[in-house]
């Protein structure tokens, strides 16, 4: 395995990179949860009183909107991680 060639202790940059990564992960997963489980399921009945075109809003989140948000979340993660990796000089 490659771990024999790795340093025993993580460097300060690696530690900071990981903490930033976790913070980013948590905020993105919060949105992930809010748009699917929140808007599409838990608060659907409330949101259904609003319409987006012919879609009741809660129904739209459950069958369309959450999927679009998922894509946006991954795009943000890819972009933000690339800049984090450049910042800490850890990119591959």
């Amino acid at each position, binding site marked *: 395995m490659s771990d024999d060639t790795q340093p025993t202790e993580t460097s300060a940059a*690696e530690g900071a990179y990981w903490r930033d990564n976790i913070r980013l992960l948590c905020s993105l997963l919060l949105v992930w949860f809010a748009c699917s489980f929140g808007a*599409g399921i838990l608060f659907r009945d409330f949101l*259904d009183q609003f319409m987006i*075109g012919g879609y009741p809003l809660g129904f739209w989140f459950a*069958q369309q909107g959450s999927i*679009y948000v998922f*894509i946006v979340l991954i795009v943000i993660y890819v972009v933000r991680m690339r800049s984090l990796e450049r910042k800490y000089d850890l*990119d591959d």
Partner: protein
Amino acid sequence: MDTQTLIYMFVGASFALYIGIAIWSRAASTKEFYVAGGGVNPVVNGMATAADWMSAASFISMAGLIAFLGYDASVYLMGWTGGYVLLALLLAPYLRKFGQFTVPDFIGTRYYSKAARVVAVVCLIFISFTYIAGQMRGVGIVFSRFLDVPITLGVVIGMGIVFVYAVLGGMKGITYTQVAQYCVLIFAYMVPAFFLSFIITGNPIPQIGLGSTVADGSGVYVLKKLNLTLTDLGFGAYTDGSKSMIDVFCITLALMVGTAGLPHVIVRFFTVPKASDARKSAGWALVFIALLYTTAPAVGAFARLNFIDTVNETSYSQAPAWFKNWERNDLIAFQDKNGDGVMQLRSGDAFDGGPVFGNATGPSGERVVSNVPNAESANEVYVDQDIMVLANPEIGGLPGWVIALVAAGGLAAALSTAAGLLLVICSSVSHDLLKSTFRPEISEKGELLAARIAATAAIVVAGYLGIYPPGWVAQVVAFAFGLAAASLFPAIFMGIFSKRMNKEGAIAGMVSGLLFTFGYIAWFKLANPADNVAANWLFGISPEGIGAAGMVLNFVVAIAVCKMTASPPAKVRRLVDSIRVPRGARDAQQH
């Protein structure tokens, strides 16, 4: 040219393409066989992942499910896409950085234990076989309806095609055929959807069409019209569900987490060059998947409207040709309860279970079923929801080449998923069981041969399950996701995000999550199907959603056991440190 000739041409041409790609991309080493050499472009891999992921169930069954379930089917839409967020954020880049060939590879190495590796192999084989039987069945249905060959012969032809490109090409052959299959299946799915959306709403984009008004001058929204039509006939409204909120929540969660834990999806991310490419690739995969998944709700709703419009209150003798075609294939039945020769569509089942046809024909010419009529419902029409997508072009009166395209698309979806599943089954046998556990001295050539033999054996078993589907296949599809959610996902997740998690905790967690989920589903689906009602469920969670509870149990048990046992060795903590940073991904695979 008649439709039948067109179907033969489209299906024949697509098969020739797949075999051509297989011959062009033969695998020469184990690395090419297991992970396509590890040099696949992230966009290409995203497309291959999408084809791998979208099975016969996505292509053939999902829109039909949506058509008949309405809001309740949202669990599939969110569940089968939201998992990619978990994959991209929590698993794919780290597993790629780890840089080996299989999912049990990671679990066995991270938890420094052959036992953990074998537990992972057992989970993987169970999940994959459950899934693959359904694919072969899908191949059989398409063949029997569109090519007029018996289901058995259809399955055998499908096995032959998969054999050629999976056994010859391994992951390399599969990757490039899956790209071709994605193109075929998405084109086949979108073309009828554009047509239908345009015919019904005047807007060709189905995602917008579903939110628009019906193009009959009435100015009523599609969903509103569907709600009105359905409530008139005694059904619940389309945009309201009938499942409880907690059940919808748990099923969605189990499907999402299960998606992220499915081995045949995870290994696709082992084929890209770098950890950062794995993230990108998961994003592309979701884009390609979303194209079909955001279209499916529109297809489902349009199909339901069209179906009711064409069938309800139509006399059988006037029924369109497609109705009689599908009746001949046992997937539609008309039981004339009131003897007026006119088909009444109402809520409730026309009769219990699937139709049992005799040889007799009724007064209107319909095939008589011997099922006892359900006295509580005035419904006279039985329809297998799986036919909605396949019958859609005919119901909508679309040209013959669209019908041919859909036949080729359905086959592409089933074959691409079957091949991906076969590969993870055979690599877990040849790599995890043989090379890493029982016969470490085996040569690369020997391992490659073993992989090909295992793939052949797996194809034969899958084909057998497709021809003689045991009754439990349809009953236990929930297994695949529930088990992946309750067993593999937590073990992989904690392996990356916790340095403290040790082998005792991980094994105890996987085993308890697996047994609990398996036991719950087996109890309600196999042992006591009569008790499978909400009142008997734990916290009101159906067997489909119990994987979410199994996952929680896995985490709790793993953390508790871990607290009471020794820390993992320093070598493992260094391994976790190294997979957390992307730098050096290219070196990590030189093991």
